[in-house]
């Protein structure tokens, strides 16, 4: 700590603080335009000038100057105020004063500072710029006439997003912010640049002319797409969520969001939302009242024989618990989520390896680690804000990055990143070989021998010598050994991998194989160490914590689907899932949905699944209800409604509570009461309440009891003349809900099949060619995307799109062997 004097006030500040940070921490406001707490100091705007007595009263920028012992600083002498006023006069020289039509009005740093410093006249005169405004994309408008050249857009795009869309073009008075060759913006459209722009140069187009800043009600919430658990602020007017508002003080991510978080909210007020219950009459779904719809459902559920339920892990913890209670009330043990396998890494893998169905590590460990081992570069696509954390760790903190993946990706481009590209489906064998190398090279931690299962594992790994695995994985033995040594010798190391519907290969065996590495090397239970399993949906971890998966004696999702087809299941209640698109094997799912006697669906939209239902219940979005979500790193977060419910829609909580009541059961009166029951019944949640969660949320406790498990690796497969198709997530899509978000649908509007340049040349395929992808299961037509990142012989396709259902060719295998035809 250093002691200094700011404006005659004795203050202390951390050793590495700048004058600006020292002042801010002590409640003294220094104006800034180009500074952002998430970015490296830049010192471009000269708004933060202060006087330091020891520097002979010279005016120096507070944002770049370190605070040192004994400094005597004055932040607002008449001279400084004069200097700041001139900075503003000079900025306003070229800035168009079009505030009445600028969406930034009210939230504009330049406007606010001009007001604060009373710059009501300008001593200088110059021409305004007349640069073309970039309207080329529907998400981000770029009006460089308003730019003050703070460089924040270029810096955030480089430092955090690591895309690098912007640069300073030209020099001197002609300088402007732009993209390569001064072209229109063409990037990932995460909108980070929009969030930090201090003026109206970068604006969110979906919000353009929708509302003035001061007319918005700002409601804090939690993002309902992926499991990262990002905090959001929703901008609401007239019961519509019109935008997301940037708040740099929100969440571990400092308000940083991805495209779907920032530009994907349109599903909330979509005109495609269901507004009334529907029942099938004479083969057609017709609107009805809740009474009739609920009576039909109760009639089907009563007795509980041959009843099954599938739920989306997008629902709140309270709703999942209530849905489970509903199934218990009707006496059916048949319920599950995420096709039954997408959570197995947690519910089976971690359950036996760590003695808990949760990740031992948190997202906060990423920046505290020395080495990250990321399995599948898709981690950036599935959880982009975690991807930003990885970027920050590697670029700012020098954390080493090792990637083990079946394709390259954006993370492979980070400085010093080592990417090992293995053949699809060989990941468990490779991880076993890494474990074997660790044992052979005597790099295992001393504690490992005492862990249960050590001897069995040692024996089971005998067949996984790096040399033996090298042949089937496409890697060299030396590469495997090097990765093993890098990982084992790092002081702190963290393993990260995604799970989800599209990542069938990341199953319980895979999870145990990964867990073994951490247990063998003692990289557990310490800061910056461990394993982070990133589940797909916003409340995937919650669904596991609430136990919403097949109990002993109950059918899992796969058996429920088959049971529908065979007649063993006669009533299927699907809450929020869209198996017709998202579950593997389209034909199998369709057979089930077609055969089942009664299909009940509650959803926001008439999805491909809901369209086939006998009763459709209009559910409401996260913005219309309260409850808790649990993120991939066990952070339990509470959120409140931001708007009133759309139409007659009800929260799933209300739907399940009404059904339980009609069935003669007891349901908690409110989500708060349900949460109280959860905290009483779930040890990890003990002591939590809505009040205690506050805005920060709280981490569910985790107790790790490590055990070494010998994981089974699938036999190496191959099919001569065929290509290996791997399914996954497209950037900024998540499940099938992101199809209703404007942002994700602009960045990636439709399904595609990605292939290497080599395969494209060999097969005579060019970008956007319409290809028929055929497997043993079926075929689907997809546009070609030729890319640098794919290895030869491997294809990638995202699974989110109802218009081109990939599950017509994909039956849930980690690797599907297909042919490509034009």
């Amino acid at each position, binding site marked *: 700590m250093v002691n200094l004097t700011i404006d005659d006030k004795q203050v202390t500040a951390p050793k590495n603080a700048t004058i600006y940070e020292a002042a801010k921490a002590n409640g003294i406001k220094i104006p800034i335009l180009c500074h952002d707490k998430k970015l490296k100091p830049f010192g471009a705007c000269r708004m933060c000038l202060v006087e330091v007595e020891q520097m002979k009263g010279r005016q120096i920028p507070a944002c770049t100057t370190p605070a040192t012992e004994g400094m005597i600083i004055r932040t607002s002498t008449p001279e400084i105020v004069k200097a700041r006023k001139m900075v503003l006069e000079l900025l306003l020289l070229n800035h168009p004063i079009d505030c009445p039509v600028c969406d930034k009005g009210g939230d504009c740093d330049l406007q606010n500072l001009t007001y604060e410093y009373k710059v009501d006249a300008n001593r200088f005169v110059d021409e305004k710029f007349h640069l073309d405004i970039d309207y080329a994309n529907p998400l981000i408008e770029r009006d460089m006439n308003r730019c003050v050249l703070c460089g924040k857009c*270029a810096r955030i795009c480089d430092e955090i997003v690591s895309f690098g*869309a*912007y*640069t300073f073009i*030209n020099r001197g008075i002609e300088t402007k912010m732009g*993209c*390569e060759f*001064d072209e229109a913006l063409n990037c990932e459209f995460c909108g980070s640049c929009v969030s930090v722009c201090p003026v109206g140069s970068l604006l969110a187009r979906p919000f353009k002319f929708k509302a003035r800043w001061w007319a918005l009600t700002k409601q804090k919430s939690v993002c309902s797409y992926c499991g990262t658990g990002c905090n959001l602020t929703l901008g609401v007017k007239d019961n519509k969520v019109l935008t997301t508002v940037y708040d740099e003080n929100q969440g571990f991510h400092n308000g940083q969001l991805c495209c779907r978080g920032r530009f994907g909210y349109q599903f909330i007020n979509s005109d495609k939302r269901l507004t009334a219950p529907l029942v099938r009459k004479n083969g057609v779904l017709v609107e009805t009242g809740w009474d009739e719809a609920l009576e039909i459902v109760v009639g089907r559920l009563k007795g509980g024989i041959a009843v099954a339920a599938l739920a989306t892990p997008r629902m709140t913890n309270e709703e999942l618990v209530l849905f489970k209670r509903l199934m218990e009330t009707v006496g059916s043990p048949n319920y599950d989520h995420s096709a039954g396998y997408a959570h197995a890494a947690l519910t089976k893998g971690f359950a036996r390896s760590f003695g808990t169905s949760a990740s031992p590590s948190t997202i906060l460990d990423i920046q505290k680690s020395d080495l990250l081992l990321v399995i599948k570069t898709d981690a950036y696509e599935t959880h982009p804000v975690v991807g930003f954390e990885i970027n920050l760790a590697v670029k700012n903190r020098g954390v080493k990055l090792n990637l083990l993946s079946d394709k390259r990706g954006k993370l492979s481009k980070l400085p010093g990143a080592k990417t090992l590209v293995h053949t699809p489906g060989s990941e468990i064998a490779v991880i076993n070989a890494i474990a074997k190398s660790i044992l052979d090279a005597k790099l295992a931690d001393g504690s490992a021998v005492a862990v249960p299962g050590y001897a069995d594992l040692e024996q089971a790994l005998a067949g996984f010598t790096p040399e033996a695995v090298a042949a089937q994985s496409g890697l060299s033995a030396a590469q495997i050994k090097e990765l093993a040594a890098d990982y084992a010798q790092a002081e702190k190391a963290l393993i990260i991998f995604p799970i989800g519907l599209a990542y069938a290969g990341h199953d319980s065996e895979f999870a145990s194989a990964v867990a073994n590495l951490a247990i063998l090397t003692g990289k557990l239970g310490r800061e910056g160490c461990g394993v982070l399993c990133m589940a797909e949906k916003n409340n995937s971890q919650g669904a596991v914590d609430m136990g919403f998966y097949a109990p002993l004696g109950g059918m899992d999702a796969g058996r429920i689907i088959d049971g529908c087809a065979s007649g063993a299941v006669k009533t299927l209640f699907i809450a929020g899932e869209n198996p017709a698109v998202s579950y593997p094997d389209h034909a199998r799912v369709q057979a089930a949905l077609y055969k089942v006697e009664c299909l009940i669906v509650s959803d926001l939209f008439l999805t491909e699944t809901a369209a086939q239902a006998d009763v459709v219940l209009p559910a409401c979005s996260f913005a219309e209800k309260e409850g808790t979500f649990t993120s991939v790193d066990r952070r339990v977060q509470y959120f409140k409604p931001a708007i009133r419910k759309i139409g007659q829609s009800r929260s799933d909580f209300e739907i399940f509570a009404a059904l339980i009541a009609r069935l003669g059961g007891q349901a908690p009166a409110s989500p708060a009461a349900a949460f109280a029951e959860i905290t009483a019944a779930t040890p990890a949640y003990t002591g939590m309440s809505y009040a205690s969660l506050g805005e920060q949320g709280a981490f569910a406790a985790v107790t790790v009891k490590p055990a070494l498990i010998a994981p089974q690796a699938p036999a190496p497969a191959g099919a001569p003349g065929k290509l290996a198709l791997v399914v996954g997530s497209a950037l900024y899509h998540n499940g099938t809900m992101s199809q209703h978000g404007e942002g994700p649908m602009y960045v990636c509007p439709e399904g595609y099949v990605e292939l290497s340049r080599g395969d494209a040349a060999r097969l005579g395929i060019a970008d956007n060619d319409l290809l028929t992808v055929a497997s043993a299961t079926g075929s689907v037509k997809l546009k070609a995307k030729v890319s640098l990142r794919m290895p030869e012989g491997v294809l990638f396709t995202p699974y989110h799109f109802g218009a081109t259902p990939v599950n017509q060719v994909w039956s849930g295998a980690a690797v599907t062997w297909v042919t490509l035809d034009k």
Partner: protein
Amino acid sequence: MSDAVAQQAAEQEPVVDLSLAHKIIDKYIDMPGNLMPVLQAAQDEYGYIPRVVADLIAERLNVYPSQIYGVLTFYAQFHLKPRGRFIIRVCVGTACHVQGAPRIVETFFDKLGIGHAETTPDLRFTFEKVACLGACGMAPLAMVNDATYGSMTVQKVEEIITDYNQRPLK
């Protein structure tokens, strides 16, 4: 060549042999801070930085394409359009101005049919006005590539153009 065809030829980026750029990148790939030397060598090779070369450098050096464009536009030494075989520079600094540089410039414009910082469609000449060439005693001054021509006159402009029109393009 009709004007329209010539115009089109000048606007179309000529076919670029990327193997030359690959060789340059190979030479510097492991050197820290290699962007400037690579760009300079590429400009020496091609006479300017073609878009495809900038993209290739971005891809192989793992530098953002935007960043390369920022560097290219920051430094006056880089050019983004094909340049003529012969670069004519005429000084318009104070001494040359007083000695009649504007007339020299006008004559070049007139005879070459191009303006400042432009290139003839046959890629023979590029013309540039420059602030000072550092030889004020020889004002008004012109340079063609590395050759210096002092005490310029309208007559000399014609001689220079005739002379360089006869030289081979390659």
